[in-house]
């Protein structure tokens, strides 16, 4: 876990998981469930979540070397 926390991809993944989660929740509270530009919170939130999952997966599947500043 300590190694993962030093991996920038993991940090970016965590950040967008948090902000994407907040936006998605806000989008669901706001209004229509359909994904459209009329619901920018939901659309942006989901896009951030997809990006977050990709970054987290990459950081777990391809661990950064102990030194090297990933």
């Amino acid at each position, binding site marked *: 876990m300590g190694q993962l*926390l030093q991996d920038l991809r993991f940090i970016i993944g965590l950040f967008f998981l948090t902000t994407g989660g907040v936006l998605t929740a806000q989008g669901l509270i706001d209004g229509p469930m359909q994904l459209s530009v009329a619901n*920018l919170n939901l659309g942006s939130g989901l896009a951030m979540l997809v990006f977050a999952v990709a970054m987290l997966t990459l950081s777990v599947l391809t661990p950064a070397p102990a*030194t090297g500043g990933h």
Partner: protein
Amino acid sequence: MQLQFVDYALIGIYFLFVIGVGLVAKMKVKTAGDFLLSGRSTPLWIASLAFISANLGAQELIGMCASGAKYGAMTAHFYWVGAIPAMLFLGLFMMPFYYGSRARSVPEYLALRFDEKTRAFNALTFAIMTVFSSGVSLYALAILLEALLKWDFNLCVFSAALIVMAYTYVGGLTSAIYNEVLQFCLIVFGIAPVVVAGLAQIGGWDAITSTLPANMTHIWAYTGSAEANPMGVNAGSLILGLGFFLSFGYWCTDYLVIQRAMAARSLGTAQTTPVIATFPKALLPIITILPGLIAIVLLKTGASFAIPLKADGRTDFDLTLPSLLAHYYPHGLLGIGLTALLASFMSGMAGNVTAFNSVVVYDLYETFVKAKASDQHYLKVGKIVTILGIALSIGTAYVARGYNNIMDLLQLVFGFVNAPLFAVFLLGMSAKRPTGRGAFSGLMVGTACAFFAHGASIAEGKGGWLGFSLFHFSTAMAQSFFIAIVAFVVCFVVTIAVSFSSAARPESELKGLVYGLTDEVSVKAPWYKAPGFYAIVATVVTLILNVLVW
């Protein structure tokens, strides 16, 4: 514009992560080299995104959107002509000298190639430039938040400065670089929805081309004469002024961006960093310039959208992007959009502070105050200089608030420093004859000529402070191209002339610093990983983009 709890919560989450990144980076800082140079261990993708992000400050984000609204699609020249060729040149031809010479900074290369006085001149002007740029970033952030959210100017200045200081003080360059990558991603996610929503509302690119005049939607078709396009420049001055003198002057000599590539873990990575960075750079106009065009279409089609006016009644184009955010974004995404703006300000400021650090410690303190001290001593000095840089930035922000015209002039003049500097680097790297005396004289005279060219020319009411004007330009942009050309040519000629009147250094001292006296460095990588291959692809992509909006 009123924020709600969810907006504040998202801004708060961002600040927590920024400080967290600083604490993570702190674990890697053991020596002065770790703090000031990131230990030369940064991987390619991080170095490339940081390279772009260090340049993607708020002035760029807000300024390019404003230029998009004012000048139209031609603003893309700042990317496709004014950045990409120079970035490729830096990676392919200059980085082997910067990185290969083991210089820790751009001024240190000048010391190795020429002499200490040339280094001191460059280090001093660069240190002053970075502090002013950092202060202007802070000032611009504070007045924007004051205008949009009615936040207190003093609170904005000090809180933003403290956050930047917190993460640069604990984690140094690594922390700044990591945060720049995070900020880059945030800027893309924070601004891209404006483009999506805007295009969906107005009816796509076709609506832009059918609503705006043709010279606002083509980048080359109306450059036959300066009068035919809103930027007031013709193709020749565009290619020479922007595409060569200004852009090569900036991208190939400005330590702020080059520092990101020099932090790479190997020469191959350092070379590839600016080359890879051209790909996101080529696509950035989609989120920086396109919103400006969308805003003008919205204004022309009578949508319920407005850009605030200045006190003199003219449109305040600098508020184009914030106005679009307020127009389209619901609460939640508004917090992300504002955080993206905050991120761009802080990224610009942190970039300046970390570059200021390295230059002050290595090129001024170690060289002229205390040489051969312990590594821990330089680490301590680096941290003190971080605080000093932030304090000077805060002071500059207040100077800017009181004397806005002086800041305009200083910003303009600092823009000229790089053009003569590029002439010196070009001569120094490509030929063995230029000498330290020649380089120093060229820099002094070239910079002075840039100053006087500004004083003797007028554009949009700016310049002409000598009391007479020999040249009139329809736009300040055309004037800046002219001044950069003058500064470069004068510096080039003076450097050569003075060099031939002074003794050249022996060839043995120039090995690794000059083309022809340096063993050709071949990066051992398959062709599809070589910087040259990526440079070809980047060139093709850029040409295609140019043709698409010809």
